[in-house]
């Protein structure tokens, strides 16, 4: 039976937005924690840590996100882990986010003037305190704009989860499109919802850029 496109269909698409937002939030937070470790490894004094984290970043920035999701989705069962689409997608997006955020924050950490580190050392602060109290707060401020920019990219990226069968905003639109035979409206509505989340974040990123970016 072909259904009409009514407010119920709009709500059905909207309900997909919940999954999109939760997925983005989890991937951003978990990816942020892992990304911080990557950024610290990338700027550490140990050569092998720098090389390993560099290779990790290069891999995720040099391969398509869709294939990364495929690898996690088809790879986990190979290692004996039967996981739901939810878990697979969350793990895939978290890994993806950790590499990108790691690279963004590496840039931020390295943009902090060297004198700051030297001054902290002269004051007798320990290595941990130098990083946490002196370098990271300044580095994070510099990285704020690209971090929000990446969040937009991540939210848009969650749409790829629909390809491996995870129901979020894009998949909800696909389902509505096939029950109503109104793909034009269904995808426009979904696009509008994405725009409603991403546009304010993009503006925020541009604002932060003008406020916190390093002036060259």
């Amino acid at each position, binding site marked *: 039976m072909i259904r009409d496109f009514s407010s119920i269909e709009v709500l059905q698409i909207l309900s997909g937005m919940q999954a999109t937002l939760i997925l983005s939030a989890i991937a951003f937070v978990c990816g942020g924690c892992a990304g911080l470790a990557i950024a610290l490894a990338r700027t550490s004094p140990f050569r092998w840590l720098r090389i390993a984290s560099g290779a990790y970043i290069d891999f995720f920035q040099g391969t398509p996100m*869709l294939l990364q999701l495929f690898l996690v989705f088809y790879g986990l069962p190979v290692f*004996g882990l039967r996981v739901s689409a939810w878990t697979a997608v969350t793990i895939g997006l978290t890994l993806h986010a950790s590499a990108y955020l790691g690279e963004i924050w590496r840039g931020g950490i390295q943009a902090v003037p060297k004198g700051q580190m030297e001054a902290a050392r002269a004051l007798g602060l320990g290595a941990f305190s130098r990083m946490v109290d002196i370098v990271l707060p300044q580095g994070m401020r510099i990285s704020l704009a690209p971090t929000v920019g990446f969040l937009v990219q991540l939210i*848009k990226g969650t749409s790829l989860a629909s390809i491996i069968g995870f129901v979020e905003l894009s998949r909800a639109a696909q389902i509505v499109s096939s029950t109503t035979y109104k793909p034009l409206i269904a995808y426009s509505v979904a*696009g509008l919802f994405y725009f409603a989340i991403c546009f304010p974040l993009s503006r925020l990123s541009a604002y932060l850029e003008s406020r916190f970016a390093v002036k060259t």
Partner: protein
Amino acid sequence: MSYQFKFEVLLPFWKELLLGCALSLWLSAIAVVLGFSLGLVTALARRSKSQFLRGAALSYIEVIRNTPFLLQVFFIFFGLPALGLSFSPWSAAILALSLNCGAFSAEIIRAGIDAIPRGQFDAGAALGLTPLQTFRDIILKPSLRVIYPALSSQFILALLTTSIVSSISAEELTSVAQSIDTVTFRSFEIYIVATLLYFMMATILSTIFKIIDRACFSYPMK
């Protein structure tokens, strides 16, 4: 771990995989060329005197940049036929990729134009150069130098984005991998191989771009 990796079942498909790589590269090259031209027009429209043109260019950029590429592909391939505009998967893929690339290039090009101080144009005029000479000898190289890194990473980004058009079964590396998957049932192996192929293409491209950068855009050593 009881899983037996069997990469050898993929060996007979090397021709298909190679063709997939070529198609992906070709698709991203078309998208970048069309996208860059579109981006140039859009960047100029952003600076035009007509408010309508400025508004149109800005809405185009913001709509494309703030919605997922997957949805743009679906909109063009499944949505537009309702308006009587039907595309083959391949042309829908080119259209979507070019539109996407255009919006991102427009912002890059705008940054390049903005990077040239106004005084450079005045200086050219003061030296008695024609506007064309000023552009060619004074403006072009510095602005290319500013936008080159972003543009070259845009190319690699386009290459990685092409994988998404497999969702409308346009033929490129990912859809080739998917069809090999349905024949061999070795999903993990085939996607490992496809991922590595993308990685190799991206690495080779970025090396080539670095060489070009060093040859053409580095400041002369003193």
